[in-house]
């Protein structure tokens, strides 16, 4: 079998056909992706458009264009209070969950100890448990030991389901780092604490920041667990759920759209800063 006579499958067809087929192949994927993005972003666009709707009490059908909703986002009763509540819960939860989760991630990646498997299981289980079960079981606890529902029960619940996500995020970053760098620092007479503070922490910081952002957005957007454990306390998602029965004010759409652009800006700035740091 001489190589010259062996028909090569690709060469046996006219190159234009191959190129045409590749073009179709590549662009079929692109067209598919564009459709997928339309599917993903359609409700977001709907929310944005309807934030300009000059609606009365209920923002369901298009009435006319207005800037008023954006000029007075707090005009509808209780909207802004619920947002303030959500942000306060989110900040406390982010601080606590990020701290607790980061400690666990360090233990799991940097230490060898008995009970690793159990620890990993206990981290994984809350993520594998449906929210209704998390919410209802925690509420049974609160009802049984007679804890009044409100701000703090919501905070407790949110910290509980955010910890696992923080652990997983920080762990991913930490395990991609070379532990020998710390060893090298300590060989150069840095104490363990100094090596941690000057070497490890700056390197893990992006992972911790990502985990914090994740915790905040999980907390801010949670409805099911909050609904079980909040009593009379109202967060932004709960406000929307309750308001939906009698008509959601357009101001809620304004706040959701504003949150969307703020979060997008934070992520894009973060990515840009990350790229600058890499290049510089």
């Amino acid at each position, binding site marked *: 079998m001489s190589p010259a006579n062996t028909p*090569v*499958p690709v060469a046996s067809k006219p190159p234009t056909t191959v190129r045409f087929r590749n073009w179709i*192949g*590549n662009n079929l*994927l*692109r067209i*598919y*992706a564009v459709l997928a*993005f339309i*599917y*993903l*972003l359609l*409700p*977001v666009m*709907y*929310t944005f458009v*309807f934030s300009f709707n000059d609606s009365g009490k209920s923002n369901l059908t298009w009435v006319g264009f207005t800037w008023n909703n954006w000029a007075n986002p707090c005009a509808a009763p209780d909207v802004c209070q619920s947002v303030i509540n959500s942000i306060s819960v989110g900040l406390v939860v982010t601080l606590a969950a990020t701290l*607790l*989760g980061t*400690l*666990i991630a360090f*233990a799991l990646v940097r*230490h*060898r100890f008995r009970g*690793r498997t159990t620890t990993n299981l*206990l981290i994984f289980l809350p*993520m*594998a*448990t*449906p929210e*209704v*079960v*998390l919410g*209802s*079981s925690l509420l049974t*606890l609160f009802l049984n030991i007679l804890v009044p529902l409100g701000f703090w029960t919501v905070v*407790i619940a949110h*910290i*509980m389901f955010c*910890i*696992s996500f923080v652990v*997983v*995020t920080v762990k*991913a*970053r930490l*395990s991609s780092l070379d532990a020998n760098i710390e*060893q090298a620092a300590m060989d150069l007479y840095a104490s363990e604490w100094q090596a941690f503070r000057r070497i490890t922490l700056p390197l893990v910081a992006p992972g911790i920041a*990502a985990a914090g952002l994740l915790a905040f*957005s999980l907390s801010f957007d949670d409805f*099911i667990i909050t609904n079980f454990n909040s009593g009379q306390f109202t967060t932004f*998602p709960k406000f*929307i759920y309750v308001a*939906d029965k009698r008509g959601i004010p357009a101001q809620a*759409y304004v706040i*959701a759209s504003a*949150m969307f652009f703020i*979060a*997008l800006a934070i992520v*894009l700035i973060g*990515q840009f800063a990350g790229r600058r740091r890499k290049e510089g």
Partner: protein
Amino acid sequence: MAIAQAIGDTIEDQRTPPPDPKKRGRFTPYLLLLPGMLWLAIFFAVPLVFLFSTSLQTPVAGGEVGEFEQTFNFGNYVDTLTDEYYYVPLFRSFIYSGIATILALLIGYPLAYMIAFKSGRWRNLLLVMVIAPFFVSFLLRTIAWRQILADEGVVVGALRVVGLVGETGGIYPSALAVITGLTYNFLPFMTLPIYASLERVDPRLIEAGSDLYAKPFTGFRKITWPLSMPGVVAGTLLTFIPAAGDYVNAELLGTGKNSMIGNRIQYEFFNVRDYPTMAVLSFVLMACIFVMVLVYVRRVGSKDLV
């Protein structure tokens, strides 16, 4: 994208063994673990015990609504599971979330593939666009779907022009609308882990495959797909589990005929205040999910992962 990778890592763990703890204190790891694990023990594990105990209670004779006493009545499980009012929504939950998971895989895999291999310098922006919907409240997005799919909405309007639907559109409320919402809400959870594992695939492997006369599809089937399996497993679990327990989509996009198990649990708690039945349903849901996850991970694991 740390988050994307992190979600991908949820399932596969411990690739890097921890370093030798020569210089470290023996109790340091436990001190690091203590606060967080204590939190999870008190507010995740203990409540499950309370929930189980509640599931065995019966109403106090002559008591008020919502008053129960512990009688270790395992019959609660039999009573609840043989009642059509409960087992039908339970089946429905798994059917809806199963379909939604398959749809999310069909949409999410090509999307992740495109972002990983064909997006060039747009990659980061496209990734952000996948996460972007998260930033608008989950409830508002679901309500937006209700308006979009409603008879006077865009989708039905467009279909009516084409002639695919009659005067009464009938997409909302229906099973189709619920599944559309479920697929939509959990699509990023499917796409990100798959992206994270595709991103790690060395393109030289695929090149090597085509150098050895593998057709593009064969190359995909034999190289890319097996290597992306951890992402597919993570993505399907992260879609299926929350979708099976969700009740917001069924409530906002369906009717009583589309109720899922989450709706029943929620209703028993807030409206009927029948806590034992609620607890039974929660436990059965959790048990079903664990069994399915175990079977699934075993099957996929033995066939493709090893």
